[in-house]
């Protein structure tokens, strides 16, 4: 079995892409801007076959895999461990050839996420949820609580796992909203991020006992106001798990529209 080789320079990465980025190939290598950072931090590895290659990035407890497939017949053996990869696709059809290649490597289908978009002008009117208070988190204790809620709610492979150590930074960036009931008890949290003028909804989660009571909607309303920075042209984006029907319905009802962009995550344990 070939062992992963560390890519030490951008030149090495560039040579790999030149070799495997052939006409007719399939790839999910959308690392691009991240590549240089990963190389500097000794975090980018590759296993190269004759026609196919995979890139590996170490994450918390598993490795994220990117691929270049030129020859569906050529398999690449992976060392023991947990892996996740995402097949990016547009439209309704998951690319079956990629699924098959990955299944032969030992991967199994996990879940599908879709990307949604909205401009402020197309959003429905704000809804006021009685008895619910939402606020930007200012205490580290609230941030730790929110991080633990996100990490216990979402699939660690497909969502973005947040280390608890990130709590002070999230407070500093005013990136967390907390929902409370009239007695101050925490009911849910939302993680937002302003990137290139677009307000992203990175995570939103509600404690089990308070689901179906409008807590998620209250948080989303606050998130929309936080992102209202460019009048009617303020932009909002998010990914949502397709099987999370209540969430999908909430976003659609608010005026979010699918962006013709989806991912199927596949995992190998």
């Amino acid at each position, binding site marked *: 079995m070939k062992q992963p080789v560390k890519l030490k320079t951008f030149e090495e990465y560039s040579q790999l*892409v030149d070799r495997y*980025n052939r*006409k007719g190939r399939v790839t999910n290598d959308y690392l691009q*801007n991240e590549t240089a950072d990963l190389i500097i931090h000794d975090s980018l590895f590759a296993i190269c076959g004759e026609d196919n290659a995979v890139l590996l990035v170490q994450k918390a407890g598993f490795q994220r895999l990117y691929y270049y497939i030129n020859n569906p017949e050529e398999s690449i053996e992976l060392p023991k461990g947990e892996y996740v990869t995402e097949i990016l696709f547009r439209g309704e059809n998951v690319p079956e050839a990629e699924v098959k290649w990955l299944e032969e490597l030992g991967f199994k289908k996990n879940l599908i996420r879709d990307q949604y978009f909205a401009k402020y002008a197309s959003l429905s009117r704000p809804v006021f949820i009685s008895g619910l208070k939402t606020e930007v988190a200012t205490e580290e204790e609230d941030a730790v609580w929110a991080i633990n809620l996100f990490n216990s709610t979402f699939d660690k492979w497909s969502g973005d796992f947040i280390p608890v150590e990130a709590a002070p930074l999230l407070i500093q960036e005013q990136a967390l909203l907390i929902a409370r009931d009239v007695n101050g008890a925490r009911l849910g949290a939302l993680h937002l991020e302003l990137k290139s003028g677009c307000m992203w909804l990175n995570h939103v989660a509600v404690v089990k006992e308070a689901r179906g009571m409008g807590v998620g909607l209250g948080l989303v309303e606050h998130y929309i106001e936080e992102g209202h920075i460019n009048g009617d042209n303020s932009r909002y984006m998010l990914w949502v798990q397709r099987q999370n029907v209540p969430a999908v319905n909430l976003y659609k009802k608010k005026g979010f529209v699918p962006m*013709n962009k989806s991912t199927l995550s596949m995992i190998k344990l």
Partner: protein
Amino acid sequence: MEKLLEILKGIRPDVDFENETALIDDGILDSFDVVSIISELDDAFDVQIRITELDPENFNSAEAIWKLVQELQAKK
């Protein structure tokens, strides 16, 4: 150029490619979009874009992408 606009609209129907001039700088296109565009350009215009040519400026507008395609075609 019309063919290019058709491709871009197919990838991201929500984007106003005729008028946007900061597709990358404003985060309207992300790296997945860029990868998809590169792949479609390869199929439609037979041009391959190398990683070193992935200058964000080349993807900030439909016009800039069209210019890149023409340059690559001229090099062939």
